[in-house]
Every structure is written in structure tokens, then in C-alpha cells.
């Protein structure tokens, strides 16, 4: 068996508004569009996935919050309706997905070997969270690539942030080892928004883009600073700034997906490709790609 590899990583945020704006048949609510620049960014990311042809997509979602360890979807086939508890008016999505259980189990075992508490979720009635589904839909709406779904353990919030993010880094290393042993060509998806300051009321027409803009100028400035560094491949500088960014921009990367992904990729100092940036109820969202096949 050939050695597996991580062929790319994507910053792939999960505002359900993007699914709502696209009007796929799986989602019940209908919209008149909206958030086009971000949806077009995902169109470019979709073309990259088509080109990369991965065997598996691994997604770390901040909306599957677990307290006792890091959890992995462990049921071969999951289906159901996922209704966003925050935006039920926008996201009521009938999902159906296939899980790469063998790789999930391998990731879980490697995480345990690293000293982390890790568990396999084997309840067939489990409702997959809207963060996982939104990211996966936006990156690959055909749903024809098996997935590994990973929970966001609450350690960055519950413990000291650096200790929690340290767990995410360990989880990333464990994920890389499992992928290498599996022979899979894998793409990692960090389902994270950047600046997470948001409006507290929704416009009467959610897709009315005349109401959409950054909630915070300071948050927007932070996003641009981080994106520019990522575009330049200054990964180590980004991670030096990360605690301050999280603190001052209320950045959702605190939940760990971003750290997990970069740790798994070995913190490559290569330019990330920005597919697009936009706000959703004021939060900052960037779709970015790190193609490790081009870097090697």
C-alpha cells in the first residue's frame, strides 16, 4: 500500500447562509440568493477538489462540541435532517453521507496513542451538526467522497486557550499519522470563521445584502492582516499572532479546526490561495486553500 498523504487543506467556514443562498434541493427554505462572493469562492474551491480527486474529506467542526475528548463519526452511513438551532429559518437540510470509518478509527487510535481522550461515535441515529454539513456541502455538493467528521472538544474554552489549542495540534499530528498509514489521499477542511463578532438581529430579508457588512472594523482589519500573512505563506507568524487575534477579533479559530489542520499539514510556510472573503451577519469568512501537491 502506498503511503497516504494530505494533499490539501482548506479554510472552509460554515455559515448556513451560504447553503440557503444557493438553494440546493436538500435544503427546505428558499432564498433569492445572497452572499454571492463567498459562494463563488466555494465554486473555485470545488474546482480544486475536482482536480485533486481526494479519497476522503476530513472536517473538524466547531458545532459538534464535545466535553469528554475528541470524537469521530463512526457509522458507515448517516442520514437525516439537520436543522440549525440558531438559524432554523435558513437551514433545514436533508443530509446523507458516507463515513470512512476505517480512517476515522485509525485517527481515533492515533489520538489515543498521543495521550488524548478520543471516542468513536457509533449511534446510527446521531444527527450530524450543521457546521459539518455546511462545510461539506459547500466544498463538494455531490456528496460522493467519504468523510471523516471530527468534533470540537471544548478544551480551548475550558482549559487555558494555549493548552486547548495544544490538544488540537496533537490531534492534527495524530490525524496525519493515521492518513499516512491508511494510504489515502486526504483533504482537510477547517470549518472556521475568522472574526466572529456578529450582529444580534437578523434583517427582515436575511439575504438582503444591503444589510451585510463587517460588524467590527477592528475585526475586519484583523482578518485582512491574517489573510495577508497566510497569502504570503507566513504561517509561523500567523500562529504567533493567533492568541491575540482570537482575543481581539473573537475569532472562531479558537475552537481548534485551524490549528488541527495546520498541525496535520506540518505548518507549511507556503502561500495560501484566497478563493474569496465575505461577511455573514457581520462575521468574517475566508475560503482559502493550501495545495500541498504543488508545494512538494
Amino acid at each position, binding site marked *: 500500500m502506498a503511503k497516504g498523504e494530505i494533499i490539501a487543506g482548506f479554510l472552509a467556514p460554515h455559515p448556513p447562509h451560504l447553503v440557503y443562498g444557493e438553494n440546493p434541493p436538500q435544503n427546505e427554505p428558499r432564498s433569492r440568493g445572497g452572499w454571492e462572493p463567498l459562494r463563488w469562492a466555494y465554486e473555485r474551491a470545488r474546482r480544486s477538489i475536482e482536480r485533486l480527486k481526494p479519497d476522503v474529506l476530513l472536517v473538524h467542526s466547531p458545532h459538534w*462540541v464535545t466535553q469528554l475528548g475528541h470524537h469521530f463519526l463512526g457509522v458507515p452511513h448517516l442520514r437525516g*435532517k*439537520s436543522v440549525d*438551532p440558531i438559524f432554523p429559518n435558513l437551514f433545514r437540510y436533508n443530509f446523507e453521507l458516507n463515513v470512512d470509518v476505517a480512517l476515522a478509527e485509525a485517527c481515533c487510535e492515533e489520538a489515543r496513542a498521543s495521550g488524548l*481522550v478520543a471516542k468513536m461515535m457509533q*449511534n446510527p441515529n*446521531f*444527527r450530524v451538526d450543521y457546521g459539518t454539513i455546511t462545510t461539506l456541502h459547500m466544498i463538494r455538493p455531490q456528496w460522493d467522497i467519504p468523510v471523516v467528521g471530527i468534533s470540537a472538544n471544548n478544551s480551548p474554552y475550558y482549559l487555558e486557550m494555549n493548552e486547548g489549542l495544544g490538544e488540537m495540534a496533537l490531534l492534527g499530528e495524530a490525524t496525519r499519522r493515521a492518513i499516512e498509514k491508511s494510504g489515502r489521499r486526504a483533504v482537510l477542511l477547517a470549518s472556521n470563521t475568522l472574526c466572529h463578532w456578529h450582529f444580534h438581529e437578523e434583517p427582515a430579508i436575511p439575504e438582503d445584502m444591503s444589510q451585510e457588512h463587517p460588524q467590527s472594523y477592528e475585526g475586519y482589519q484583523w482578518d485582512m492582516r491574517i489573510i495577508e500573512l497566510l497569502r504570503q505563506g507566513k504561517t509561523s507568524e500567523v500562529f504567533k499572532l493567533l492568541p491575540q487575534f482570537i482575543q481581539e477579533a473573537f475569532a472562531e479559530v479558537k475552537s481548534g479546526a485551524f490549528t488541527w489542520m495546520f498541525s496535520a499539514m506540518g505548518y507549511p510556510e507556503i502561500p495560501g490561495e484566497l478563493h474569496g472573503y465575505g461577511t455573514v451577519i457581520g462575521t468574517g469568512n475566508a475560503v482559502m486553500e493550501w495545495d500541498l501537491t504543488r508545494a512538494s
Partner: protein
Amino acid sequence: MPLVAAFLVPGSPLHYLRPDVSAWAPLAAAFRTAATALRAARPEVLIVYSTQWIAVLDELWQTRPVVRGLHVDENWYAFGDLPFELRIDTVLAEACIAATPSIGVRSRGVNYDGFPIDTGTIVANGFLNEDNAASLVIAANNVYHDWARTEALGALAAAQAELLGRRFALVGVGGLSGTLFRHEIDPADDHIASSEDDALNQSFLATLTQGDGAALRAACGPYAAKARADMGMKHLAFVLGGLGPHYSGATTLGYGPSYGSGAAVVQFTV
């Protein structure tokens, strides 16, 4: 008096799904005691506020007449499924929605098939209202609402119930100290995570049962900070708001652990 009962109960599924576990049995028994008392009070509606139903935009109220489904907790899925069927007092819920602008809160109704009812609400209803004799009004925990605003919401819900002539009970769903074990334990060995948390919980419950509203409100902030209490004890704020001048004390029916965190079933004197 339309207010006929009030309770503070934990929202963990552990006591509900595994009452046979020795460490969780006392709280399950306390729930059954509370259910008997509630049944005797004959409420038409339970006004439920659960810390686990999180909202960030507006205040959300369940407005679907009948909500049914099969819920699986995102943490404790291995202990079993939670089938549920809830009857909603949509008239009272809509009245609450219409009234909240008077306290500076914008509200919305939630009426969607498949909406994820939170574990705490399902557990509370399953223990206290197993036969669905009472309908429910369910209010979300908007994370940006502070103690005062949450108390105002509880008061508003109670006032609307009184205006409609309902016999109602208040149910605040949430925990006490918030430190969970971060490693696997044998459930039979479950206990409060530290003696400090245990002491803080016991002291807080003593204050809660005494019936001195000023002392209780003064104790809440420091207790919540030291014990990492569940959502700053906003479930208590909602119930206290609903009780208003009727708060005169309470009885702790049961106290125990929920994977290291603190949990109690408390019946208020009404």
C-alpha cells in the same frame, strides 16, 4: 394563584438514561419526587428555560403545536436515544413573543419540523411530565442576555401566563458547578469533581433554600465564577424572575454528580 409550582432541575441525560447507575440514582429519585409534587399541583403549562437551548439572535420561543422526534445527545450518545413528544402552549408562547419588546427584547417563534430540541428540555419533560398532562412553553437561552434580562424574561412569561389565566409551573433546567471529568470514569464512581466545588454547591443550595432573595442574588455571581456554574445560573434567574415576590424558600430534593459537575433537583416553596 396561577403559579402552582417551580423547580430547578439538571439537564444532563445521564440520570434519565441510566437511573440504574448508583451514583445517578439519587437524582433520578429526586426527579420522581418532583414529578409527584408537580402532578399534585395540576399545572396546565410548564414554562421551561433550559441553559442548553442556545440562541444568539433574538429570543427564541418554541411555537410548533406538537414537537416530536428522536434526539441523540452530542456528548452522551452512547447511553441511548431520547425519543420525545412535547405539546406546546402556542397561545401563551405567542403572547410572550408579542410582549418581549416591552422589556427591550426582540423575540421570534420557532415552528419547524426537525428542530433540535435540547437535551435538557427533553430530560425535564421526560421526568416531570412523562404523560404530557401539561403543555409547555420553552424559551431559549440567548447567550448575550445577562442575569437581569433573563430574570425579566421569566417575569414576563409568568405575567403573560397570569393574564391568560393559566395554572402554570416554572422549570429552570441547568446544572450547578461546571467542572466535568475530562477522562473516562466508571459511572458508578461518579462524584463532584472537587471538594471545593462540592462545598460551593452545598453552600449555594443552603442560601437558595433559605428564601432571602437579596442574599441569593448577591451569592450568585461569586458562586458562578468560582464554581464555573452552568451559564452563570441563568436558569435560576429565569425562575426567580417568574416567582417574583413569591420566592420564599425552597427544598433540595436531591443533589449529586453529573460526570463531575454538580446537579440538583430543587423545589421552590409556592
